[in-house]
Every structure is written in C-alpha cells, then in structure tokens.
C-alpha cells in the first residue's frame, strides 16, 4: 500500500524565537528552519512500515513557500520515495492545509496517511483530524504504536490518563506522538541519492482549493516575563520561604 506523509517547514526547535517589533508575527529572516519534529517521526514510521513490507511507496507532501522543497528533500534523504510540493506564498491555516492534502490524496490514493500531531510553530494540533473528517476516514491521533493488518490499523494513543488502543479501518489518518519512534539521520549517500528523487510541483489553484485564512491575526506579542532567578542556600531556608514568604505550603 501507498503511504502519504505531510511535512511542515518550521523554525528549528532549538531556536529561541523573537517576536517582531511591529507585532505582526515572529521573526523568520535568517533563522534556522527544519522539519517539524513530529513530522520527522511520521516519516520514520512510514519508513519502518516499508521496511516491514507493509508499505510499498512513500510520498512526501509539503505545503508553503518554495523553500519547503528543502524539507521534502530531508524526508527523501531519510528514505521516502518521492515528493509533492504545493507551492504558495499565501498564509496556510490548518483547514486550508487539510483541504489541499485531501485534493492530493484523491489523486494519489494512499491507504495510510501519517502526519505529526502538531506543528511546533502554531501549536494548532488540527490538520490530521480535519483531513480525516474531510475524507470521511477514521483517525488515530497521538499514536505511540501502530500495528497494521488486514485493512485495519491497531493504534495505541497517548491520552491524558495513560494509553488507549483503538482499531481503525484503512484508509485512515494517523498523527504521531513523541514516543512512536526515534527518527533516523540521513546518511551522506542517501542525501546524494535524494537529490535525484522527483518532487512534483503543484499549487492551491491547480488543486482548486480556496486557501483564504479564516482566522485573522490581529497581533503577536511576547508573554509577560517571569521574574525569577532567586537562590536559596539550604533546604531549611527553602521550606521557610515557601511557608512564610510565598505561603504556598
């Protein structure tokens, strides 16, 4: 079966972000960009399913500016087979991304779609769920274990109380949580090979999707700074301060 993985280009998780002085957003110029960490886990899971003989081909899709091609190349270097770039300079919100992915999926007919549970930039945690709703497919979010057999997936999910296991019919959308796997690093030969793998370009217009944002960002601000940094010298002093100064115990 074919697997489709969507990957998002985000500010690298190690970068301390800066809010723009005019409050229109977050500074992205000259900032290191990487693949959303949850999407790396999605790519890795697809690779493992291919290695297990369950998946035959892995298609990687990214949506956004031309540089998203680099994010696709990263996935191809990890081992994915080919890429699709939905190129646009427009702001893409999760509903629009889900509609674009749906359009791509109707052309490609994958049986399993794996994507990160959330992007670490907007922290929305929506796209996978929206995509499965638009397709009328089942969803298994926050996956920490995936077992595929006979047109079904048995997925263990990380939930607030612990773990939950569901069975879903394929085709389905699965979103990844942190403990699903540890993504591999691309080897140098594979990075070289990835340069020759095809990336098909398309656009929201070609896919017939209106991507007009539904949420208007009025402003982006820095949160109030926490005043910390005080040290205490001993356990006795700590307990005393918590009792008499902070009055929390």
């Amino acid at each position, binding site marked *: 079966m074919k697997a489709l993985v969507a990957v998002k280009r985000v500010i690298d998780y190690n970068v301390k972000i800066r809010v723009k002085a005019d409050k229109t957003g977050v500074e992205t110029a000259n900032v290191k960009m990487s693949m959303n960490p949850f999407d790396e886990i999605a790519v890795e899971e697809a690779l493992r399913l291919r290695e297990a003989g369950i998946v035959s081909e892995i298609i990687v899709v990214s949506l956004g500016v031309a540089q998203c091609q680099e994010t696709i190349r990263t996935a191809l270097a990890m081992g994915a087979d080919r890429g699709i770039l939905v190129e646009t300079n427009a702001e893409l919100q999760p509903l629009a991304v889900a509609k674009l992915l749906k359009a791509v999926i109707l052309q490609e007919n994958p049986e399993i779609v794996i994507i990160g549970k959330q992007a670490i930039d907007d922290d929305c945690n929506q796209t996978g769920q929206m995509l499965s709703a638009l397709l009328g497919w089942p969803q298994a979010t926050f996956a920490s274990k995936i077992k595929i057999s006979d047109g079904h997936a048995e997925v263990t999910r990380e*939930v607030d109380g612990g773990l939950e296991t569901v069975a879903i019919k394929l085709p389905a959308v699965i979103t990844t949580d942190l*403990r699903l796997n540890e993504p591999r690093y691309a080897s140098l030969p594979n990075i070289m090979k990835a340069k020759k793998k095809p990336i098909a370009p398309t656009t929201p217009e070609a896919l017939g999707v209106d991507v007009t944002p539904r949420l208007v960002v009025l402003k982006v601000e820095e949160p109030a700074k926490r005043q910390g940094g005080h040290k205490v010298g001993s356990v006795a002093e700590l307990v005393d301060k918590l009792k008499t100064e902070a009055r929390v115990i």
Partner: protein
Amino acid sequence: MSALVVAEHDNAALKPATLNAVAAATKIAGQDVDILVAGKGCRAVAEVVAKIAGVRKVLLADDAAYDHGLAENVAPLVVKLAESHSHLLAPATTSGKNFMPRVAALLDVMQISDISAVVSPDTFVRPIYAGNALQTVQSKDPIKVITVRGTAFPPGDATGGSAAIETVASTGPAGLSEFLRAELSKSERPELTSARIIISGGRGMQSGDNFHLLEKVADILGAAVGASRAAVDAGFVPNDYQVGQTGKIVAPELYIAVGISGAIQHLAGMKDSKVIVAINKDEEAPIFQIADYGLVGDLFKILPELEAELERSQ
C-alpha cells in the same frame, strides 16, 4: 449568541477541565451556555453538570456509540447541535484536541486552538511557539470552534445551578473505528492538571525507581507527580506524567522541578505556575532563570532532607 461546551467525563465522573471550559464559555456567551454530556450510561454525569453555576441547559446523549469518546462518532453529534449554537467549546485535553478539529472541518470552519483569553466573542488570545508568543486572532467563521487552555480560566462554581436535562437523539456509530482497550495510570495522588502542588522529575532522577524520592515529598504535600519529556522518553515514568508544550499544561500554586534543566518545551507547560522551585546540581541550568526559589545541589541529598524538613515542620 449561545455556547455549547462539550463536557469531559468517563461516564461516571466529570473531569475538572470542563469547569474551566465553562468559565471561558461564560465570558463569551454570558448566561447562554449549554453543556453536552455524550457517553454511555452517563446520566449521573449530566446530573452533576446540571448543578454547575450558570448553565442554561444540559444536553444528554446516552448511547453506546459515545462510550469511549471516539472522534468519528462524537463529531457528527456536535456538528448537529451546532445548528443552535454560535460557539462550540471543549477543554484542550487529549480528548478535546482529538474530536474538535474534526467538528470544525465538518462545519468548514477553522478551530481556534487552546485559547488563553477571550477578547470578544470573535477574538481570542492563544499561545504559539510553546507559549513564547501570544497571538490574538479574530475568527471570520460563522461558528467558532474553540478548545480552551484550562490553566488560563479559573474554574466556575461546580454548584448552585439547576439546569434542566434534555435528552438528544444519538447520531449513531460511524462504523469507522472501535475502542479496544485502555491502560490508564492509577494513582491516589491528585490529577496533574488540577493539582495545587506538583513535584516533577527530569533526566537528573536517573531512574524510574528514584521517583519514589519525589513521591515521598509529594505525599507529604498532597502533590501530584509530573515529569519532563526526557524522563518519559528514558522510560522512568509513563507518558501521562509529561508536562510541556506537547504534554500537559499545568499552572499549580507550587511547582517543584527536580533534576530538570528547563528546555523551552518543558517551560511551556509550567511557566504560569504561581511559585516555581528548582532543584538542580547545575547552577547554569535555564530552569533557575524562571524559578522563584532555586536550590543548587545534589537532588539525591536534597530530596531526603526536604522530606525530613517538611515532616518536621508539619
């Protein structure tokens, strides 16, 4: 304008996060707040919900299809009830995060995720980049689908109301998914997201066994026990202990971080705590920059001392 809050529960008891979502709904729709209780054999929950102050009406959907809150089954029900509501809200828990975007997509609207403030009925504040920036967004959609960050909205009164309970018809099973089993952590200690005091351990704890040092302190303080991602990834404790950007968001009165360096992803989950204590042997650890009280030293020496000192002073 009226709001519908989807209650979170396990068919027996209401989850406290529902009260935070009701508080947010009240800020939007005032007295016109209804609550949906969908589950199997969950009338007892509906009766509890009916007593929440300020609730206008309780909608009870009691059907096997809603037993485990499967998103494929719950979403069509919420979509149906959206006809008579301008705002749909759920707590931003793993449950709300699971079915609400499905609801939004079926209604062809954007979800407004994890709101931390209500500016007006169509404008909300939400944290982005692990809480390192706050975004104010205005929704252009006719129906607002919202998940609520519990720590940002103090819970309303759980009693004082006497709303009527109205039964709503089931939309039935979608036939796409099936619940198989749950392995839920059992603990006598308070739940992380509603605990008044939390003590969390990180990589510095070195093993799962060493968490008993934290548990002893937790039991004296009546605290919940949490962990950083590093401690969960290392297998010291289960996933439901994780506090952080993609784990649980907490804001207790007292948060004690032990052997946690303070990666931004962890800070994202706890930096709104009222008082933060950090115990770490590395005095350069970033956690100290946001801690109200930092104690530099070996946690294996400090924790038994802390336990003894707390016992002595109780």
